[in-house]
């Protein structure tokens, strides 16, 4: 990996390593809650391979995208509804 890129997390700029998945990027940034379950519990990546759907975030306005399956690109806007930034 070489270099860094900038994405937008919940409206705030975040500098991350290029070439990482969104899940890795958010975990590296100490995001603990990617989303909330219907009962309000925090959720974060579990399987890391697209099966468990626990890491869903909103990417460029599209809800329920799996963070572990998307390689971060410069300028991506990520929201973690109900989660911490």
């Amino acid at each position, binding site marked *: 990996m070489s270099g860094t890129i900038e994405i937008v997390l919940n409206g705030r700029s975040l500098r991350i390593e290029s070439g990482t998945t969104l899940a890795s990027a958010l975990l590296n940034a100490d995001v603990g809650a990617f989303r909330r379950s*219907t009962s309000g519990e925090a959720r974060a990546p579990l399987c890391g391979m697209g099966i468990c*759907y626990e890491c*869903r975030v909103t990417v460029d306005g599209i*809800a*329920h995208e799996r963070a572990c399956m998307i390689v971060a690109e410069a300028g991506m806007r990520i929201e973690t509804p109900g989660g911490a930034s």
Partner: protein
Amino acid sequence: MTTVRRSDAIVVGAGIVGAACAAALARDGWRVTILEKSFASAGTTSVGMGHLVAMDDSPEQLALTEYSLRLWRELAPALDARAELDRCGTLWVAEDESQLSALRTKRATYAAAGIATEVLGQRELSEAEPNLRKGLVGALRVPQDSVLYPPGATLTLLDVARAHDAVLRENVEVREIIPNGVQLDGETIRADVVVIAAGSWSPRLISGLPIVPRKGHLAITDRAPGFCRHQIVELGYLTSAHVMTSESVAFNVQPRSTGQVLIGSSRELVGWNAATNRDILRRMLERATNFMPGLADLSVIRCWTGFRPATPDKLPLIGAWEPIPGAWIAAGHEGLGITTSLATAQLLADLIAGRATQIDAAAFSPMRAMDAVHA
């Protein structure tokens, strides 16, 4: 000193109908035991949509659903968060001019039954439900209809029953209905009254009961709050659901309190085969996306099947089963058991007590099936 003997009643089945019957009988002073072969709500109660709906496919059905909706409104304050009650109303959607005239007939039928409705034109419909496809000609809105989570409502009904000393025994299989009692494995229980509320499974206890399992599929999406605001049903639903063809699908979507969209519906007569039928599921989802194209952008996270207890004349069996002393039936509600559970229970409790019923119960007598056979 005189001792008042409380008579014993057994309810077989702890689905929503059995729970409602148990609550009604316990309130009447019966000492109620509920026997459930699995756990409460494990059968058809947990696999349906939970649409509380006035249904007008026959005068008897309309009278029963309307009566039951009144009872639901009375019960509403006792329902807690588990029931997820949402007074979202129903939209019956018309695709063309001929269906629009059918909507007006439907409006008149409801009005005669005292049910307020309003006709939405093309623009009003589009404003009410922006995710419906353009070009639909109108809809009938029934504001009094609502949606709930049936297993949650069943828990409340069981609480009511237990507050009046009813006892729920789960994982207990009834082997035989005997005169004034039931036979379990190695145990006989005597009771003055035995109510069979075992839904699709009732014919296993009363042979010859005209109930068949009519399979349906449902699918639920990820959360998409606000995607739809009413239970939306195509007007053609009645043709699909209430004519006994071998298989059919219809557009029927429901907003859940989580923001998820519950998508139905299908009907098949395939015995007890619970496997997902991909062809039916595909047709059902195509029908849904035809009416709401945006559904295609949502993810279905789960789909499942269930068995509605269907009768030949589309009416439930509520009343005495004369061949067996003490036996009463409350079963065969097909897709309306959630709506009509409370009216079923009240009718049955009134019949058992020898009281006058609020609506004519003759059309629901289980004996009509026998009469038809022997006529």
